[in-house]
Every structure is written in structure tokens, then in C-alpha cells.
């Protein structure tokens, strides 16, 4: 362990950073696209069905295959990895946003409209805040998927902690494999923890003790 850190310490930091970069970017894109899309879909329930099944289908493509499919389009490196992982992150966020929005008490939406909120005001001030816990659990789920799958990005030359693991596999070097796996696990746990904190902060209180 100490030996691994001595010989690969600085490399570890760089690879971890790459991993965070790839995963973080994918998730961020996923949130930016999937949350508004999920909200939009609640206004078009008929279209929603089709969009949901398309994203579900994308989800079923094996991850290595999806990464490989990116190569003819985007070449190798970080860009194709981010695109592929972004596609994976979409479904849980989209589905949870859609469900979360649909589950908001119709009475409240009716009251919001009846008191004179515009559709946008109702979405931003009432519906999204109420749906926040469900949306956030989608984001957390996506984040864990994407962090672990981003290990595979090394396969198409994106770097990251996957480099250790693949090298370890090639060289029959267990300490390299473990040295890559443990940080990935820690990253996933840490990300989930931080998102949990974030969720608490952005989910509005409904009791004073929670405020």
C-alpha cells in the first residue's frame, strides 16, 4: 500500500482528477438536459412515453459497447467518454424528474395557478421545489453509475483511474487493480454523501426544525 503510494502517488492524484472531471462533466450535462426535459415532458404526457422508452433503450446498451460506438463519431479521448456517460446519466434523472413532477399534489398546482402564478412561476416556485427529493435521488443514482462506469473510459483513452485497473489486469499486478478500485469506490461514496448534503440544502423545509 505504502509502496503503491510511493511509486504511483502523483499519478494517482492526476488519474483521480481525470475521473472526477469525466464523471462530473457527464453528470452536469445530464442534469442540465434531463431536468428541463423531464419538466417539459410532464406537459406532454403522450410524448413522454416515447422519450422514456428511448432513454430506457439507450440504457440497455452495454457500457463498453456504447463507449466503442462513440469512437467512429468522436474519435478517442475524453469527449466520447463524456458523451457516452452523459447518455447513461440521462435516464435516472429524466425518469425521476418526470415522476417527481407528476407526483406533485394537483391541489397545490391548481392553487398556484388559481392565485395567478404563470406556468413558469408554478414550475420554479412550487413544482420543482416539491419534486426536489425525487429529482435528487435520480441525480444521486446517476452519479454513482457514472463514477463507476467512467473507469471504463480508460478503454477509449480518456484516462482516469481505469488506467490503473486496466494496466493491473494486463500486467497481472493486483496492487495496481486495488489501487485503482479503492479510490473509485471512495469517490462514489463521497459524491453520494456530498449530494446528500446538497439535497438537504435545496429541498425546502416544511417544518421549522428542518429549516
Amino acid at each position, binding site marked *: 500500500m505504502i509502496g503503491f503510494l510511493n511509486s504511483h502517488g502523483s499519478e494517482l492524484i492526476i488519474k483521480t482528477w481525470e475521473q472526477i472531471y469525466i464523471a462530473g462533466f457527464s453528470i452536469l450535462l445530464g442534469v442540465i438536459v434531463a431536468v428541463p426535459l423531464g419538466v417539459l415532458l410532464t406537459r406532454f404526457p403522450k410524448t413522454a412515453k416515447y422519450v422514456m422508452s428511448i432513454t430506457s433503450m439507450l440504457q440497455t446498451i452495454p457500457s463498453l459497447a456504447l463507449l466503442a460506438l462513440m469512437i467512429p463519431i468522436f474519435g478517442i479521448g475524453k469527449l466520447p467518454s463524456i458523451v457516452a456517460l452523459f447518455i447513461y446519466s440521462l435516464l435516472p434523472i429524466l425518469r425521476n424528474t418526470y415522476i417527481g413532477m407528476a407526483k406533485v399534489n394537483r*391541489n397545490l398546482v391548481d*392553487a398556484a395557478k388559481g392565485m395567478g402564478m404563470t406556468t413558469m412561476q408554478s414550475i420554479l416556485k412550487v413544482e420543482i421545489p416539491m419534486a426536489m427529493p425525487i429529482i435528487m435521488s435520480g441525480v444521486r443514482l446517476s452519479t454513482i453509475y457514472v463514477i463507476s462506469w467512467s473507469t471504463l473510459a480508460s478503454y477509449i483513452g480518456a484516462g482516469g483511474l481505469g488506467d490503473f485497473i486496466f494496466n493491473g489486469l494486463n500486467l497481472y499486478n493486483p496492487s495496481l487493480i486495488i489501487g485503482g478500485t479503492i479510490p473509485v469506490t471512495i469517490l462514489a461514496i463521497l459524491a453520494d454523501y456530498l449530494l446528500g448534503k446538497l439535497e438537504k440544502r435545496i429541498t425546502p423545509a416544511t417544518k421549522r426544525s428542518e429549516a
Partner: protein
Amino acid sequence: MATAKEIVSFKDVAKIYRGRAAVTDVNITIKEGEFVCFIGTSGSGKTTTMRMINRMLEPTKGTIIFKGKNIKKYDPVKLRRTIGYVIQNNGLMPHMTIKDNITLVPKLLKWSQEKMDQKARELIKLAELPENYLDMFPAELSGGQQQRIGVVRALAADQDIILMDEPFGALDPITRDNLQDLVKHLQETLGKTIVFVTHDMDEALKLATHIVILDGGKVIQDDTPDNILQHPANNFVKNLLGEERLLQAQQDTLSVGDIMSKNPAHITLGKSLSEAIWEMSRHHVDSLLVTDDSKKLKGYIDLETINDHYAKDLSVSDIYANNLIKVRANSYLRDTSERILKQGYKYVPVVDSDNTLIGIVTRASLVNVVFDAIWGKDELENPEDANLPASITEGSEKA
């Protein structure tokens, strides 16, 4: 009130869903300051009719005029900010404090913070809740308290008309009663116009100044509560009101003159006692009302008194009693019947405005009319009364 302005009027309005009419031929006029109740069975179109007023629904046919202008000319969002809206289960935002809930519309209208704070304090007082509730969340209040906030919130931007859709349906009877008093206060004291959907006739009769009865999407009757009670349009309305209320209502407007017997046995002051006895035997009664020559009521005289004081040269004017009660012909039965019956008078003379004797109300005739509805059967038990000599003195009161 007499010349109150129209605030909302429906002209031949219909709402049709996929070929099925939810409401049709609606013609209603709502005046400023009225408390209008829409009442009817489930699915009769109450909510549909109400929601067309703030353009939550658009009529399929017809026009709605709001404050003198076709409702379509208003921007729906701006229109809704001028119309209070209260729904069942209060519709308070669970993630906003009571204060933020109350000032939701003022915030949309971009009021200053100061003005909003002041409004919040004013309205929490109106809701009769302590000021520190402003910082609480809805989940920390009881259902009744939440709905109090729901009601006063509808006034936050000084709306002068408020729509309420079965606002108290989910509350227990006592809480509901209190909230009914609150909304009645808003209408009576603050002059708000209230449109109130309910399927509870007691609630409608307690609150409304104007009732619109709906059935199968049509307006069956549109009138004041009194007129509806007096002249229910059809059997549907009668059923909705119920037998008991109709009976009660009938008594409510019967006057003493309606049930009195005319030409009661009477005698004038100047007549002799023997003439009085002869009159009594002619009418088979044991007492006579006493009038002067112009038929003004003076008192009464009964057989017992005549027996005690009999002397040839005495006249009625010497021994008649003048301590009698009498009623005016135009007074309402509901105001007098209880007094007459409870005090045990056998009958009461009826006079007009200048004390001229015009009739008599006997206990028997009263009982016929009032019997069932006012006290029910068990309270009117004075079986021996029927055999005792009729008397109009107060002395016959039962111990």
C-alpha cells in the same frame, strides 16, 4: 345594497367536454357584496361554473362579463390575481411559511417587503391567530387553522371577490361553524363578494344572500334563500330543502291574521250582565271580549266573575278585566306563537293598528299549524286543558 353593481354575469354560458355538457344555459348575475352559494348534488356543475369566473376553465359557449368587461379581454394571470381563490384542503404551499403563503399574490405583484409584512400581520389578526404563527409552516397548524389561513390569504392583494370551492368540506362541524362565521364576516363587514360552492344546504342557508341551485348542469333556481324556501321551483328543490325546512319556512312567514278566526264572541261596555250571559250561552263560551261602541278592544269578562258579582243594575263596564294580552294581525306567527302557547293562554284577541278587535287566535288553531315543527309531539301535553272552561286569563298557566 339596493343598487349594488354587477360584478359577474353569465350569459347563456355552456361548458362542453367531448360532446357532453358539464353545464348549459347558465345565466346568473352576481352583484357586489353578495354571498352567492352554488349548491347541487355531485356532478351538477358547481365547480365547473365557478372556475369559469377566474378562467381556470373557458366556456365553450356564451359570455361572461366581469366588472363590465368580457372576461376574455382580461389577461388570465392578471385576472386571477384580482380574484381570491380558496379550495378544499386549503392549498397552502407546504414548503412556504405561513407568511410566505399569505403574501404569495402580493409577491407576484411585486409589493415592497414592508407592505407585505404589514399585510401578513393584518391578515393573521383577521384569522384570529397569534402573530408568531407567521413563521410556522402549514404542517405545524391544525386543519382548521390552515383553512383559516387559506381563507384570509385570498384577501392578501385586496381582492374584492373570492371564489371558494367546498372550502370547509373536510372540517369537523365546530371548526366549520367558526370558519363559516369568518367568511360571513368578510362579506358582511368588509363588503367582499363571495362565490361559494357547497352541497350542504344548512351551510348555504346560513351564509348565502343568493342561492343558485344546479342540477345536471342546469340552473334550477336562482334566488334569495327566503324566496327559494317560500317558492321552491320544483320537487328537486323541495327534496334538497327537505320537508322540515319547508314547514319551518312556511311558519316563518305566516302572520297571525292568516290563521285567526274572524268575528269572535264579544260584547260592548254598556251592555248589562244578563245580556252578557245570554251572549255566552249563544256562542257556547264562558268568556267574552269587551269592546267599546267603535269596536276598540277594552278587555274581557268571564262567567266566573259575573257569578261572583251578579247584580241586576251592574253593566259589563263595571266588572270587566282589562289585563289581557293581545296581538297585532300583521305580526309573524313565529314571533307570537311560542309566547301564546308556552304561557298557556286559551286564546288571544287579534287587533289591527288602532286597537280595533278583528279576530281571535285560539290555542286549538295555533296548535294545528305549529304542532309538529316547533316543538315536536311531546311538549304539547296539557290533556286536561281541553275540558276546562275556556279562559283568557293568565291564571290558567300550568305549574
